[in-house]
């Protein structure tokens, strides 16, 4: 698929990716800073991730996720 747009969303620096499929439609996905990017990921996406996904951002996202997970399982808190 062809990369069409990269949007940076929230303080957690999610990369919201829009691609164009072979049939001409849109395909979307969101990448978060705890993800390991695939080797065949678009180079522009890799570059933005390298730039934006600092240790501070990763720590903040990990903390946020843990808080949300605890809400899902209140008996574990």
């Amino acid at each position: 698929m062809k990369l069409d747009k990269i949007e940076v969303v929230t303080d957690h620096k999610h990369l919201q990716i829009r691609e164009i499929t072979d049939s001409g439609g849109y395909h979307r996905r969101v990448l978060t800073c705890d993800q390991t990017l695939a080797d065949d990921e678009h180079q522009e996406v890799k570059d933005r991730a390298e730039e934006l996904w600092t240790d501070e951002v990763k720590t903040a996202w990990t903390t946020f996720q843990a808080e949300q997970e605890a809400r899902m399982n209140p008996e574990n808190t």
Partner: protein
Amino acid sequence: MSGITNQVGARSGVIGSGGGIGYEEGTWTPTGDVTFSGATGFYTKIGRLVTLSFAILWGSDTEGSNAQIKSLPFTAAGTNSRGGGFLSYSSDGTASSLYLGSTTTVYVKASAGAGVVTNTDLQTRDLMGVITYITA
């Protein structure tokens, strides 16, 4: 002029002079903590409100971690109060509710008031459903 494009296959458009409502439709591919045996999804976004539909064939699992649907096409503006969803079909027979537990993750629950079901509960099951939320 006002309104929203309604042509079949319309990818996007903004109708109306000066700050109209944005419209976009396309596909997404659900993922989870287990590898799904099959997964397809579609979305329609009007303004900041997005509605997703999906069909998933859940993968095998024995670890029993929370059943999650990830790789949403848009980041949610927040959690639980910003959206949620339901299963229109589940061969599991128990899962029915979809909870927006994170800005990028939906959890599968047995009912709105029940706990999260596990990947083990859903392994090799077919799930189809709809999710709606406000985007960031």
